[in-house]
Structure formats: C-alpha cells, structure tokens
C-alpha cells in the first residue's frame, strides 16, 4: 500500500515537473532553421523525393547505421536467451495442423505480401516507407506462414547469412563513400539520376534495400526464436 502510494507520489511529481513543458507550447508557425535548410536544399543535393529518407539515410546516416546495429544486438540477444536447450525436442503433439482455408490463404497471400514489402523498401526514396517498414512487412509474411504451417522449420544458416551479409554490404557502401565521394555513408557514389525515378538518389535505394533485407531477416529471427522457445 505504502509502495503504491510512493509510486503515485513519484508520478505526481513528474506530472508537476513536466506540465509546464507541455502546457506552454506555442504552435510553431514556421519550420526551425535546420528543418528549413533540409527542405530547401535536400531534394537538389540528394535527388530523393522523400525528404525523410534523405535525412535518415544520408544527412544522419550514422544514426541509422546505429539503429541497425541495435536491432542486430536485439536479435542476437533474443536468440541467445531463448535458445533451445540441448536435447529438448519440440513436442510434435502440441503443434496442430491449421485449417485448409488458412493454408490455402497463406499460399495465396505470402508472395503478395513479399512483393509489397519489397516495393516499400525499393521505393523508400520516392514514397513514404523505407527499409525498416519494408522489412517488417516481409517479416509479417513469414509470421503468417509460421502460423499456418507450424511444422515448417526456418533455415538458420540462410537467415544468418542474409542478415550479416547485408550488414557488411551496408558498411562497404559507407566506406566506398569515403573514397569515391565526400565522406562516410555519402550516397553520391552512384549518379543522382532523374528526380522521382526509381533509379535515382544515388546509393539510397541500395542502402534501403539492404536495410530492408536486414530488418526482415532479423525480425524473422526473433519470431523464430520465440516460436521455438514456447515448446
């Protein structure tokens, strides 16, 4: 009881502390100077129609590389903590066959979801979306087939190889930027192309495709570790 009260007290304290921050906010009528610069120069400098992408992948590319590394550790950590103990086999009785409707539906939908995911990360520099979102869509296709075919096993070697190879390639593209363009993670190692076309914005589509593959395989890895651990 006392503990609850203390927790409540701490929360009230935080509310009082942070209330002025929220209540005094003036709605901004114009962009701040940094954002203005991005909006004004971004499309010309990087040739990417989606401005958010050009900030994420190029201007602040190192943060994105960091986020990719964080996700990589999260996958490794989950896989490590939920790893199957040696000798404990999965119980086949627990896993019931799913219905035929589900199986047929999955067979029909999986390629389409895959296609959609690939579309999202390939067009990351043109339309809303990008590598992270596309990767999640791809992982959702795998989740669907995991649910409808519980017996199927995922090939870890391939999953692992896709994950680390795309990471390595991402870094290699970054390093190429040092030697072929102005600095680490510069997208101008490839020609900027025509604004708004699929093959434009330099290396951004390549980087986002790699991120898409990496995020997709990482999330599948997490789902797979979770699926195997509950048996």
């Amino acid at each position, binding site marked *: 009881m006392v503990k609850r009260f203390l927790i409540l007290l701490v929360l009230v304290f935080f509310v009082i502390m942070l209330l002025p*921050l929220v209540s005094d906010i003036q709605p901004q009528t114009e962009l*701040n*100077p*940094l*954002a203005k*610069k*991005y909006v004004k120069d971004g499309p010309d*400098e990087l040739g990417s129609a989606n401005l958010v992408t050009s900030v994420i992948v*190029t*201007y*602040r*590319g*190192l*943060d994105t*590389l*960091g*986020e990719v*590394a*964080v996700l*990589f*550790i*999260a996958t*490794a*950590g989950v896989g*490590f*903590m939920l*790893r199957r103990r040696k000798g404990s086999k999965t119980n086949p009785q627990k896993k019931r066959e799913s219905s035929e409707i589900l199986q047929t539906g999955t067979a029909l939908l999986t390629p389409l979801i895959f296609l959609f995911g690939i579309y999202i990360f390939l067009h990351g520099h043109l339309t809303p979306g990008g590598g992270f979102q596309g990767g999640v869509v791809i992982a959702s296709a795998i989740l669907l087939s995991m649910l409808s075919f519980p017996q199927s096993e995922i090939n870890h070697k391939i999953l*692992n*190889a896709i*994950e*680390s*190879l795309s*990471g*390595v390639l991402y*870094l290699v593209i*970054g*390093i190429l*930027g*040092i030697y072929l*363009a*102005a*600095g*680490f*993670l*510069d*997208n*101008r190692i490839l020609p900027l192309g025509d604004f708004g076309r699929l093959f434009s914005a330099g290396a951004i589509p390549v980087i986002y495709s790699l991120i898409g593959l990496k995020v997709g395989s990482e999330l599948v890895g997490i789902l797979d570790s979770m699926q195997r651990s509950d048996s």
Partner: protein
Amino acid sequence: MILPFLIIIPLLAAFLITLISGEKDNWAIVLSVLAEMSLLTLALFSFFTTGYDTFVYEMSGWKIPLTICLVQDALSGFMLVIVNLIALTSLMFSISYIRQYSSPWKYYALFMLLITGMNGVIATGDIFNLFVFMEIALFAAYALVAFGAKAEEYEAAFKYAVMGSISSTLILLGIGILYASTSTLTMAHIAAELQTKDPQVTYWVAAVFLVGFGLKSAVMPFHAWLPDAHSSAPAPISSMLSGVLIKALGIYAIIRIFFNIFGAPPVFLMIFMVLGSISIIVASYLALGQWDLKRLLAYSSISQIGFILLGLGIGTKLAILGAVFHILNHAIFKSLLFYNAGSVEMALGTRDLRKMGNLRGALPVTTSTSMIASLSVAGLPPFNGFFSKLIIIIAAVQSQHIIYAIIAVIGSLLTLAYFMKVQRYGFHGETVINEIKKPVSLGMKSAMIILAVLCVVVSILIIPGIREITLDPVVSVIISKTGYIQAVIGR
C-alpha cells in the same frame, strides 16, 4: 580521417564474425583480436598526434549542423586509448575463459558491438548520435551480462536493462528539450545557442541529464543495478563494464555535457562533490561487508567513481588532473582485479572469499598481480592509484574544501581495509590450496601481467615532461569549458 574507422572496424568485425563463424570460435577470435589491435593502434596514434588541436570529421560530406560530426580532441583520444587498451587485454583473457560457455562466437560479436558503442559515444560530436551509440553499448552489455545463462545472471541483466532504460528515457527527454529550444543536435551548436537562451533551460536539462548519466555511471544514489550486473557477468565483461563502460557512458558523457556544453554551472559542481563523497564513503562501507569477491569489487567501483566525480566537482586544474588520471588508473587496476577474480573462479569454482585460501602455490601469477592491483587501488606508493588520489586530496585542500579532503582520506583508508580483507582471506589465507580444477591459460596470465606492469608504469605520466604531452591537453579540454564551441565551429 581516422575517426570513422574507430566505428567502422568493430562494427564490420561484428557482422563478419556472425557471417563466417560456425560452431567453432577460431575465426571469431582471429577477427576480433585483429580488429582490436588495429583499433588500439589508431587510438594511440590519434591521441599522440592530436595534442591541443581539435579535428572534426563531418559525415557524408555535408557541413554541421546539417549532418553528424565526429570530434577528436585530447579528451576523446584519451578515452579511446583507455577503452581499447582494456578491450584488448579483455579479449586476451576471454579466449580460454569464454570456452566454458556455449556458442562462444556470439560472445565475440557482442563484444565487438560493445566496443562500437563505446567508441561511438566517445568520438561523436552530436548529442542524438551519442544516445544511439550509448544504446548500442548498453544493449550489448545487457546481453553479455546474461551470457552465462543462469537464473541469477538473467535477473541481473533484467535489472540492468530496466535501470538502463529508465536512464535512457530521461536522457532522451533531455535531448528532446535541448532540440526544442536550440533546434540543433550538434553539441557545439547547442552550447553556443544555450548561451543566448534562458539559463532555466540549462538547469532543467542538466537536472534530467544528471539523473540519466548518473544512473549510467552508477554514482550513489543511482548505483543499485551495478553490484548485480558487474558481479554476474563473465569476468572479462565485468572488467569491461567496471573498467571502461561506466566511464565512457557515464563519466565521459558527464564531462562533455556538463563542462563543454553547459559550461560547468557551479551548482552542479557542488552536486558532483556531494554525490562523489557519498559514493566514496557509503560504497566503501558496503564493500567492507561483502564476501563475494566480484561483488566487493563492484562496490569498490562505485566508490572509485566517487573519487573521479569529487575531482571533477572541485573543478580546479589540479583536481581535474587528478580525476582524469584516476579514470585511467581505475580502468587499469579494476580490470586487473576482475581478471584475478575470474581466474580464481575458473580455477577453484568459487568467488566466496571464505572458501578461498592460500593461493600462492596454486595460482602464483594471479596472487602476485592481485597484490599489485590491491595496493594500487588502495593508494599506496609507488603504484598509480596513489598519485591520482593524492592529487585529488591536495586539490581539495588547496581549494579550501577541507571536509571533502577528509572524506577522501577516510575513503582511501576504507579502501585499504577492504583490500587487506581480500588479500588476507582470498589470496593469503590459512588453508593452503594446491589442487585446481582448471589451469589458468597463457592468454589469461599475459592479460594480468600486462595490466600489473601498467599499474606501475602509468605512474610516470605524472612526471612533468611526460604529463605535458599526455594528461595536460586532456585537462585543458575540460577546464576551457565552452572553448569546445570555438574549437568545433570556428575552424
């Protein structure tokens, strides 16, 4: 030009290790040792070529504040040398130690990511980027604390993760407020903007950061996660966490933000002194009661961090010299002590001081190096710990903080007391132990010997001629406060 490679090399090594490793860990060892050796070389090179200069590397060819920059000055060079030095010895120690756990190659991948995170935090000149790299280091640390896969290790990792997330949330809140009021994320630009803003913003953000980074550096009263996490991790990881992680993520970030961005407001220096003294006394007292060797060492880390914070809080040139020197010294002797604890644990299967005994015959290298490390941490001449503590105490007296000087002296005496306990029960006890379960390998021995030698050798940094090219530039970065702005923007 060197700077991005300090991040690229360990990250590339981590990805390559997962790509090529099978069940065996041979390639993982080769890759990570190679990566770490090149990192140490780069760090040493950058430290000794920087001097009083500041180099800025702007990412992807744009100008700050549009992009992220990496900043190399004496302080970051100094921290990079410490991190990569301890990391190299830790890898040497790991090679045979980690084989007792399953899938050791994963350990090396996570270890490389831990290095990536710490190098990134130290090298970056962008406050949000600092947060991202801090998360990399922390996530890797959570996973590595749980590497032994026993219940208590999971518990410690979970506790660490909860506390780490709370502190990260607070830090992110602070970064958000800073961005809202200055509309830039480059640290030098933030510092320049803050000078024209209402000082209240600085105080609010500094208070949030104090708690956030205080949790990361485990000063009292934000220390609760440390004794569990640092004692449950595998020994080489304990040494990384206690030796460098709390300094890279905690103390280094505190120095950068409070001194270089906020310009060291006096009220916060006062808080540093108070928190530092509380840490010194209370943690020493708690350490005195421990029988678990690694737990004792973990509490000792809290109290030594207290010395560093006290030195920073006094804020005179001499005191900061002491604090900076103590950062290096503590990294060396605390890592060595954790290696000692690790090799005892491997050889005898226990960490309980009461179950240890006279180990002179069975583990000669471990026993003698632990003696050197204990004397260093307790602050006896001619070992390195003596000089840094002495400087901090003299600086406290000089700046009229007599009470703090007395607290530091009492803290040193308590440190001596609990390390005498370690030696008396753990290594020179009554029961002579001759049988050991597993021999201590050559890699583990050489890691301990290297650090024991450094315990003595590092003392020469205090000789004026050598100090002028090593420690003095670091002190000048800290003491010049917002000189950082000029160094980064006005090139």
